[in-house]
């Protein structure tokens, strides 16, 4: 699904003029940020460190309220419909949000129970999740004994337990080996084919170019350029997204 038009008839996510200013910071982290993502779209949010990617994702996933602006998920606003929205989204944080002393199966069971799954449903969902992250053999071992790639796969599988309408992924392939990354890419493509909307942040631009139907290049809390990766490349003299990215955001280090 390729979407690049400004008007989207059936949006999954709508953000209107979101702003967020953290105490003690001279500049706002996010400044009147607007975005519309269509249902089933795979949207990549790209930007240097401190560009505001995680803050935007947190506001869109309902983890923190914006200072101003509004978010709608499938037409519903947080506040009145928070619980319903939360039951229809999956959130995979950048950190390995797992209990290290529990086994993979116990982790899945715990989060599935919190999502309201019961009985046979929970059993079959555990099996599906273990198959999804290919951890059937290690299901009964503590997560602390897993490799980085195994933990990342489990982290992603738990985000999918409720068959979410929208999946928020914050750098899901950081520190992962090539094999695990390949598996994660495969699974994400399959998810998109089933109609799941995916909002995804990454520093790996070739990964975004390969996976995303649309990307937004972000800096200082504002979108600088947006569109399907191939269209962005067609309209510029650059060979890949990384060159466009550097052109827009500059070469200066951001985390000094």
């Amino acid at each position, binding site marked *: 699904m390729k979407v690049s038009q400004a008007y989207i008839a059936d949006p999954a996510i709508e953000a209107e003029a979101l702003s967020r200013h953290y105490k003690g910071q001279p500049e706002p982290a996010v400044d009147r940020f607007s975005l519309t993502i269509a249902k089933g779209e795979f949207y990549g949010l790209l930007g240097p460190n401190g560009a505001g990617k995680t803050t935007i994702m947190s506001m869109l996933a309902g983890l923190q309220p914006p200072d101003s602006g509004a978010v709608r998920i499938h037409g519903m606003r947080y506040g009145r419909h928070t619980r319903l929205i939360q039951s229809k989204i999956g*959130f995979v944080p950048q*950190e390995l949000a797992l*209990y290290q002393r529990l086994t993979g199966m116990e982790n899945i069971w715990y989060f599935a129970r919190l999502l309201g799954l019961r009985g046979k449903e929970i059993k079959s969902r555990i099996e599906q999740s273990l198959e999804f992250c290919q951890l059937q053999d290690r299901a009964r071992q503590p997560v602390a004994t897993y490799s980085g790639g195994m933990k990342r796969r489990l982290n992603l599988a738990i985000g999918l337990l409720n068959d979410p309408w929208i999946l928020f992924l914050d750098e899901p392939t950081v520190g992962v080996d090539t094999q695990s990354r390949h598996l994660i890419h495969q699974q994400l493509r399959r998810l998109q084919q089933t109609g799941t909307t995916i909002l995804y942040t990454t520093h790996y631009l070739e990964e975004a170019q390969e996976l995303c139907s649309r990307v937004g290049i972000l800096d200082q809390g504002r979108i600088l350029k947006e569109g399907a990766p191939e269209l962005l490349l067609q309209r510029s003299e650059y060979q890949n997204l990384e060159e466009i990215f550097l052109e827009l955001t500059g070469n200066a280090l951001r985390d000094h």
Partner: protein
Amino acid sequence: MRALLTSAHKELRLLARDYAGLLVLFLMPVTLVVVITLVQENILQLSGQRPTEICVQDDDQGPFAHGLTAYLQTGKLEAVPWTGSADELRQAVTAGTCQAALILEQGASARLQQQIDRQLAGDATSKSPSLALDLLFDPATMVGFRAGIFARVQMAAQATELEMKATRLGARLTAQAGAGTPAGNGSGEDLRALFSRSLTTIAEQSGHSSQSSMDEILNPVDRNVPAWALFGMFFTAIPIAGTILTERQSGVALRLTAMPVSPISLLAGKMFAYLGVCVVQFILIALVGIYLFPHLGLQAFSLPINPLSLLLPVCASSLAACGFGVCLGSVCRSYEQASTLGATIVVAAAAMGGIMVPVYAMPPLMQQLSILSPLSWAITCFSDLLIRGNPWESTLPDLGRLVAFSAVMLIISWKRAYR
């Protein structure tokens, strides 16, 4: 050496930017030292260097009562007049409101004077004690405390009696000299008997009319077992706080925030789990008290007639401890902060609450402050049931305080825990 200095420099820089950590490092030990020092001042009280209060119901209003009160004062016992009835005074002692009380019956002075006169007249039947004073003690008071007060009251009573005897004897001799009559039939033997045989006795009682013998109900183990079990229970606050901090640091808190589940449920779930831990902890300590203590030469921990009555204070205390743990984890930013702050608060609250030293033995300021400590509410519940033998209904106010404390802690944590 360069690496060492560089490392030290880095640590100091980190610390200088951690204001909460600095507070924990410096303010908390100061607070602890102040609290412990104040509490330790009770040693002065127990050793007689500070006045101890004793409630006195003076229905006599005669010379014996006045003399006795004056002597109590010189013996560092502050006589606090009781204005209610004798039954109300007994209830106050039973409830632990008043740790020691003395009842001076109506006509005590007149009876004593009659006895002295009969003794002076050589009446042999007057040699046996005729005035019994009721000295009441809160059953939860320590043996040493009671012995100290008993001795001082006894001394004051004997001094008053001697003074009255000397006055009566002087008056008698003056009257005889004035009349020109020889001294009566009082021999040297009679005079010795007059001054060596006391006419007053002191009966030591608990506040309970049904439990008049203190020896039957006093067992220091009955106080120490719940006291130190409570101390242990409140220390579980630190691991509870640790679980919240681990969740926050690992990103689990973020994931939980994005899920359709209330933080209150998650926190209450933690409290529930640790409540079970605390109950097991108490049972284990109680079992040690019952079965191991006798083998160590100590008295066994004695359960009340209905052991299930202990369940409510155990659960309410555990709930309060777990609530504190959840709040600690929500407020602190790191495990180091939580463990230092948690341990400091628990030790200070235990000291203030009468776990280490009974509240009645503390200075007045600390006695006032002790009512703020959940450990004080908890130990009062256990003392009521185990030592004072009160019915479980008497513990309801303190149980309510413990549950309310837990609820307040949970509400404070609600918005902060997974922030």
